[in-house]
């Protein structure tokens, strides 16, 4: 019997692909076929997913032979070499100890306490976005007025990126996650990002301010703990990882809450329930729909399967987040579930560095939107919601609302 093809097609925006669910029901570890007819292991169980992601014998290095590439355009090392500058490896694709050394230069910027001090700034940006919603409609598309600009404005502030550059880097980050992008297109996109970041970083070197990139330039880069190439890679990672992810998650959150009036009204009357609701929405929507890829560097046994050194492994975090052994009645969205052990931010040394910021953005956006527009609803008529199934990150293209 031939192996199922991966990635799998999603038909229901509120569920995981049917074929993936079937695969997960058969067992926690299985095999799939990729676009080039190569095969890879797929891990769908929650316990097994954590075991793989926490095990340093699984490498995140895209340049290693056997690493499972999910799109024709994305062959790590060749691509990075062609793109140059900020196109090089980011810590997301590095292994310990190099990964840990680089990450530790950044963790101080993203502590829970430090991010909490950014909440008033996030609230201010959210208010500005909601002013734009008010001015534009009804009807008004919530994706282009709130879900995309909010994380992007917050990032501009954090990284010290001029707000005027937003359209440029937003376009580039969207192009980067296009599932259909060819290698030539991806190289072009990476080069564009690389040129942009080179210019940005040079500016910080000349006129440092108080933003994250300036602090890195004046500290670790100057004293040699961070190379300039790592600085550029880090700038690219922070700019893209912190942008599309939060935007997609916020888009899906808004679509979901507007679909269920009870949820909208409940969170409006009980804002203290929002943080728990955010955790459940993170689990339910698991935007990293392509999964997290690794390659084994040694023979490792996972759930009685021996994964050989050099074999590719895809950890399907969206399947793991619906594992009934870890989450009771997993296909139901229960805003008061109170389960924070989902894998939406990953697990292991690569677990999302910006998770505290993502949580604040989501919490603030939900609270402020409901407070400002308690009667918000999806606008009447056909095609008001268009989901994005054509990306490496699950999301929404358009969500037209009225009030």
């Amino acid at each position: 019997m031939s192996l199922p093809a991966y990635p799998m097609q999603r038909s229901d925006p509120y569920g995981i692909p049917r074929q993936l669910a079937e695969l997960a029901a058969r067992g926690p570890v299985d095999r799939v076929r990729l676009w080039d007819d190569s095969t890879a292991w797929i891990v769908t169980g929650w316990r097994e997913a954590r075991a793989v992601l926490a095990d340093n014998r699984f490498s995140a290095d895209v340049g290693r032979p056997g690493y499972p590439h999910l799109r024709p355009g994305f062959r790590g090392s060749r691509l990075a070499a062609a793109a140059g500058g900020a196109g090089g490896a980011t810590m997301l694709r590095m292994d310990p100890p190099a990964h840990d050394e680089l990450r530790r230069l950044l963790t101080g910027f993203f502590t829970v306490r430090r991010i909490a001090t950014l909440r008033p700034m996030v609230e201010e940006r959210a208010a500005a976005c909601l002013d734009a919603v008010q001015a534009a409609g009804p009807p008004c598309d919530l994706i282009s007025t709130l879900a995309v600009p909010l994380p992007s404005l917050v990032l501009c502030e954090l990284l010290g990126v001029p707000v005027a550059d937003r359209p440029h880097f937003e376009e580039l980050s969207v192009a980067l996650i296009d599932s259909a992008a060819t290698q030539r297109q991806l190289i072009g996109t990476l080069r564009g990002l690389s040129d942009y970041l080179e210019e940005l970083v040079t500016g910080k070197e000349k006129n440092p301010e108080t933003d994250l990139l300036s602090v890195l330039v004046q500290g670790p880069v100057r004293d040699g703990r961070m190379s300039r190439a790592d600085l550029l890679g880090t700038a690219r990672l922070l700019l893209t990882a912190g942008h599309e992810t939060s935007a997609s998650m916020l888009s899906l959150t808004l679509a979901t809450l507007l679909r269920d009036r009870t949820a909208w009204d409940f969170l409006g009357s009980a804002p203290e329930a929002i943080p728990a609701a955010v955790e459940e929405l993170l689990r339910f929507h698991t935007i990293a729909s392509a999964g997290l890829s690794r390659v084994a560097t040694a023979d490792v046994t996972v759930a009685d399967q021996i994964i050989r050194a050099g074999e590719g492994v895809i950890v399907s975090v969206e399947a793991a987040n619906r594992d009934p052994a870890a989450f009771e009645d997993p296909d139901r969205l229960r805003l008061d579930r109170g389960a924070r052990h989902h894998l939406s931010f990953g697990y292991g040394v690569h677990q999302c560095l910006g998770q505290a910021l993502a949580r604040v953005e989501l919490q603030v956006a939900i609270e402020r939107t409901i407070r400002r527009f308690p009667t918000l609803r999806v606008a009447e008529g056909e095609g008001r919601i268009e989901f994005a199934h054509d990306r490496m990150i699950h999301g929404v293209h358009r969500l037209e609302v009225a009030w």
Partner: protein
Amino acid sequence: MVSGEPRLAVRADRTRCCGSGNCASILPEMFDQDDEGLVVVREPYPDAGLRSAVDQAVLLCPVQAIEASPAEPVDARFRFGG
């Protein structure tokens, strides 16, 4: 520390810590992060009543940097030793 109450012993391995902040986020009275984002245990011998919250912090830590176990009954030693 109130004498005789069962306590937990909580340790965190800062060489493993990746600064995810899960512990500081769910149990700020017990865990903090230093300027570099690394875990600091604020209360190494919490009341055993915190067991399930501490267990949650242990479960959520992405790099298994936190360990919790019942503390040695130091108070009992004082009682018997006079």
